[in-house]
């Protein structure tokens, strides 16, 4: 079977374009976000993106700060314990980015609706609040009846709401482990990665590590994203950094704070892009940028035991890198 492993640069070249509906983000702002894909989007100067993020992450914060996102939809737009997302809020407040608000459940349900190809999804949340009545993508109408329109339950006759399903052009999804055919294991909450992987027209995985397929045959119940729905796999250790990947590495608290501070201003954002987006030539350069000591420290966290059952199947770094096709790193 041919390998689906390609380089990050090739994945962005092949599967993204200006103006596309791009879905990513993952298990909340501090974990399992495929932000490395977002960095590469900036390196390749993609712009005018319509971002679909279940919740904001440092990726959306960065893409918004760098001016690559025109429209976004998400449920939560902060950074949890790290405060407000300065890059995203700056873009919204300046009117450079239009954010459509939903709740976190609404986003999961809209992805489920896309996965099932339903025309609409029953809504018993978000109704009766300004999430229903205010529509940033159609600001002139108030109260808006098109964002979450009413639908009548044919059994009781009473009205509830209807969510529009999401079917993004591409989902870049962070996973802990993948094999070369795209079978993937996530450690930590799925958040909505299962639904997203079925809703998106195309799926690219960013895996912290590659494993032999024997690992998947030993743990088929953990393989919540099967290779048959995956377009490509990118091997990219610390793909979620500075965010966490349970079992793999902890959140880089200092970088989270520094990054968010930087993204709060135009100059800071430019400096961040210069230093942490455009500054490396390839994967090894990226890993050097994080730093050997920092990587060792982050990998030594209290959740490291979660990875233990799978360590015997991990492909060594050189072997995993050699699987990549598609030219440069």
């Amino acid at each position: 079977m041919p390998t689906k492993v390609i380089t990050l640069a090739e994945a962005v070249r092949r599967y993204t374009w200006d103006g596309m509906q791009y879905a990513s983000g993952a298990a909340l702002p501090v974990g399992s976000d495929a932000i490395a894909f977002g960095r590469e989007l900036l390196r390749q100067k993609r712009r005018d993106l319509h971002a679909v993020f279940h919740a904001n992450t440092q990726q959306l914060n960065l893409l918004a700060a760098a001016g690559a996102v025109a429209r976004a939809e998400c449920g939560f737009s902060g950074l949890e314990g790290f405060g407000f997302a300065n890059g995203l809020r700056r873009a919204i407040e300046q009117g450079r980015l239009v954010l459509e608000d939903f709740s976190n459940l609404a986003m999961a349900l809209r992805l489920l609706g896309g996965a099932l190809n339903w025309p609409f999804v029953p809504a018993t949340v978000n109704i009766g609040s300004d999430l229903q009545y205010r529509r940033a993508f159609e600001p002139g109408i108030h109260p808006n009846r098109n964002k979450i329109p009413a639908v009548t339950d044919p059994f009781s006759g009473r009205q509830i709401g209807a969510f529009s399903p999401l079917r993004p052009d591409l989902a870049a999804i962070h996973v802990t482990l993948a094999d070369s055919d795209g079978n993937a294991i996530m450690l930590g909450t799925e958040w909505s990665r299962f639904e997203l992987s079925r809703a998106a027209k195309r799926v690219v995985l960013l895996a912290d590590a590659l494993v032999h397929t024997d690992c998947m045959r030993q743990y088929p119940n953990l393989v919540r994203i099967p290779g048959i729905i995956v377009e490509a796999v990118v091997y990219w250790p610390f793909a979620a950094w500075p965010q966490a990947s349970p079992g793999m590495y902890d959140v880089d608290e200092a970088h989270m704070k520094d990054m968010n501070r930087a993204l709060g201003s135009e100059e800071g954002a430019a400096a961040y892009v210069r230093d942490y987006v455009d500054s490396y030539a390839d994967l090894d350069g990226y890993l050097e940028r994080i730093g050997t000591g920092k990587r060792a420290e982050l990998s030594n966290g209290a959740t490291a035991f979660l990875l233990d059952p799978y360590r015997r199947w991990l492909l060594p770094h050189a072997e995993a890198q050699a699987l990549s096709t598609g030219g440069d790193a």
Partner: protein
Amino acid sequence: MSSAYSRQEMMAIATGREIRDGELAIFGVGLSMLAGYFAQACHAPGVRAMTEGGVYGATPVGGLPWGIECNRLAVNAVSFTSALDALGCLVASGRCDVGIIGAAQVDRFGNVNTTGIWDGPIGESYRPPKTRLTGAGGANDIACGAKRYLIMVSHEPKRFVERVTYISSPGYLDGGDARDRVGFVGGGPSAIITTLGILRPDPQTHEFQLDAYFPFSGVDEILANTGWNLQVSAGLRVVPEPTLQELAALRRVDQTGMLRR
């Protein structure tokens, strides 16, 4: 008698006291999680706690988690599922007994704004806020679905407003039976717990009234810090101050001292 404690600690303890043993409860990040895990550590060891990421059976380790999926929670969970499961099957379904949410603004009917601060009313045409906040997150789902929920908020005039500019999470909407008319499965906010006291809704009008003040606060201070004409409950009481046992439990949970800053 107890040792010195901060206003934030009193708020967290007062919130935690609202949670009963055995309840199915959902906690958000930050203060909400501290209050919830304090209850578990103190008087409700059998509380069935979850976060909206579908993280079950976890107790934070090494300090307050940075998020509901932080490794500090992932380290000892017994189950990880998904947002659809936690917020959908267990909360929006009406199954969850109690949730805790925060607020940037809250109004007399317990409606919550966490979306943004505008310079005046939004108007007929939607426009971006002057200050963008964090959005609804899972709070809207908790507000719609949980049997009851608690609002934790710092007691300041700018936060306690007559009417929130934007309803991110519905309380009792326009009061009276307005909430029932939408048909939510959840019962609405049962208390607003602040840095100064506790407000509870009138059973009929659903307007929040001052139910209790903290040992270090008083009615005058609370009225001065509330942006609407706050009614005082006939049964106004003073909240008992934290016991030494409560403070010890809270500080075990709040290992990194977030509430003492």
